[in-house]
């Protein structure tokens, strides 16, 4: 039996990650500064870790309700109302998921299949396209442009909509560009969508990490509330990536459909992570503020650093990534990253890993210590000068 023949074509056709090779190179090298990983360098605040340990000591080691502990769902509802003016009923409009990733997967699996189109603005997180393909639907890529500050414009959206469009992925604040959508920008998108039968999958995992402007949720527009599925989680804001805990909110019918998949595939999110998440929402306002202020300082240093080297760098207003253009070096994104890693031992990720329109850019994550950022910038500067001479 040829095992390869047993695999579904839609899975087989998904190309292996182009980034893998960089991590293989890294493993062979010493003294590498990685600006490659998209996760906080901060350790989860102690009060959160301690709450989880306490839950274990008390013996809370069983399944929770499929949708998650009701106490946690209530905290999530309060939090979303308080911060982003969106109201959800914790009883039937929220599922606690295994990270935002599960939420994206179950939302797409519940909504789309063969013949449906999912609009995916790129550059963006790689899972959207993958999950769309797993569901058997067709990704319809919208190429965001540096000249629009990597925002989704009504025109780009209108051009992508067809009678088959069922879902729009709305990934802001954006990984990898750091772009955010302001209230006015969202309003223009809402005007395009309001009389269409399209569900918006709004991935707001970076909502807490904005600099200068507060995040606005598309779900806070009354005409969009029922048509929006809001995905978020604890990984980025609370430095809880390893806990695998997120959530999805939306119309009760959609949530009920997603819950069917969730309860068979997952049962429930890890209970100890749920107790940690309750503590995060209740008592971590200060720690989050402190982390955001530190990210902002690193962001300033990194963006200025790239600009001083002569690279064009759009000002990221959210997440923890800078996305400079490296076109002036004459190298492709891949060449740039590979040469930089081999000569100066700094890892950044080629922009085209996040979609073809990311070619000519690289993603540098500033969720790493200030010392390392400064050293990395020096090395990148050396590299760029060695390319010119």
């Amino acid at each position, binding site marked *: 039996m040829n095992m390869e023949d047993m695999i579904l074509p839609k899975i087989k056709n998904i190309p292996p990650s182009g980034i893998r090779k960089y991590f293989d190179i890294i493993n062979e090298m010493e003294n590498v500064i990685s600006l490659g990983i998209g*996760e906080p360098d901060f*350790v989860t605040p102690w009060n959160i870790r301690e709450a989880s340990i306490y839950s274990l000591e008390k013996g809370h080691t069983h399944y929770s309700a499929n949708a998650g502990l009701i106490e946690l769902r209530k905290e999530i509802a309060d939090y979303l109302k308080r911060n982003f003016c969106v109201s959800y009923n914790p009883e039937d409009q929220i599922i606690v998921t295994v990270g935002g990733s599960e939420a994206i997967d179950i939302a797409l699996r519940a909504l789309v299949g063969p013949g449906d189109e999912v609009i995916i603005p790129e550059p963006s997180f790689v899972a959207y396209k993958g999950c769309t393909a797993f569901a058997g639907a067709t990704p319809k890529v919208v190429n965001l442009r540096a000249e629009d500050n990597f925002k989704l414009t009504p025109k780009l959206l209108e051009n992508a909509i067809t009678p088959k469009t069922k879902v729009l992925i709305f990934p802001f604040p954006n990984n990898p560009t750091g772009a955010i959508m302001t209230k006015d920008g969202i309003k223009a998108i809402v005007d395009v969508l309001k009389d269409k039968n399209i569900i918006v999958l709004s991935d707001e995992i970076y909502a807490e990490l904005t600099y200068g402007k507060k995040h606005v949720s598309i779900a806070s527009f009354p005409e969009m509330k029922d048509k929006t599925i809001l995905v978020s989680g604890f990984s980025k804001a609370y430095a809880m990536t390893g806990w695998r805990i997120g959530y999805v909110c939306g119309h009760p019918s959609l949530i009920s459909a997603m819950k069917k998949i969730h309860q068979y595939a997952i049962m429930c999110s890890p209970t100890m992570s749920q107790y940690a998440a309750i503590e995060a929402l209740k008592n971590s306002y200060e720690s989050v503020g402190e982390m955001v202020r530190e990210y902002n300082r690193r962001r300033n240093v990194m963006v200025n650093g790239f600009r001083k080297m002569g690279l064009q760098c759009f000002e990221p207003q959210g997440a923890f990534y800078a996305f400079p253009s490296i076109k002036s070096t004459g190298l492709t994104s891949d060449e740039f990253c590979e040469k930089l890693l081999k000569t100066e031992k700094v890892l950044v990720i080629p922009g085209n890993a996040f979609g073809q329109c990311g070619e000519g850019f690289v993603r540098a994550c500033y969720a790493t210590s200030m010392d390392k950022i400064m050293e990395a910038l020096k090395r990148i500067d050396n590299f760029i000068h060695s390319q010119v001479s």
Partner: protein
Amino acid sequence: MEEILEVLEKNSKLSAKEIAEMTGKGVEEVQKSIKEYEDKKIILGYMTLINWEKTDKESVMAFIEIKVTPQREYGFDKIAARIYRFPEVKACYLMSGGFDLAVIIEGKTMKEVALFVSQKLAVQEYVLSTATHFVLKKYKDEGVEFEGKEQDDREAIII
């Protein structure tokens, strides 16, 4: 938000230029603010946090609880001043609760500290009693953990 202070409190080695870059302010603006903080004694000094246990220096630290009789007109301030002017006194606080002054003393040996307490502190007029507690081990000081600092052990993952 006094961001310059927040940044300097964690790392006093940063130059005005570096702080300017981090905070998005101008270099001159940062220099001016720092000068003002110094003039107004908001910034009192630039210290270095040292783990002396890793050196050959002999040193011992004690935490002294002192009960005193407050003085008419001066309250606790005058007696506190008589105590905190000794260079051996590293810190001195007025406390609520079971005693009045908390004093941190550093000396070379336990004997030296004990002698200092009995000969210089306990004998002060208005001092009613002292209780000396020696520090056996420092786990954390000024917000910095002395050992077991978590390393950056993030593993490579696809995005």
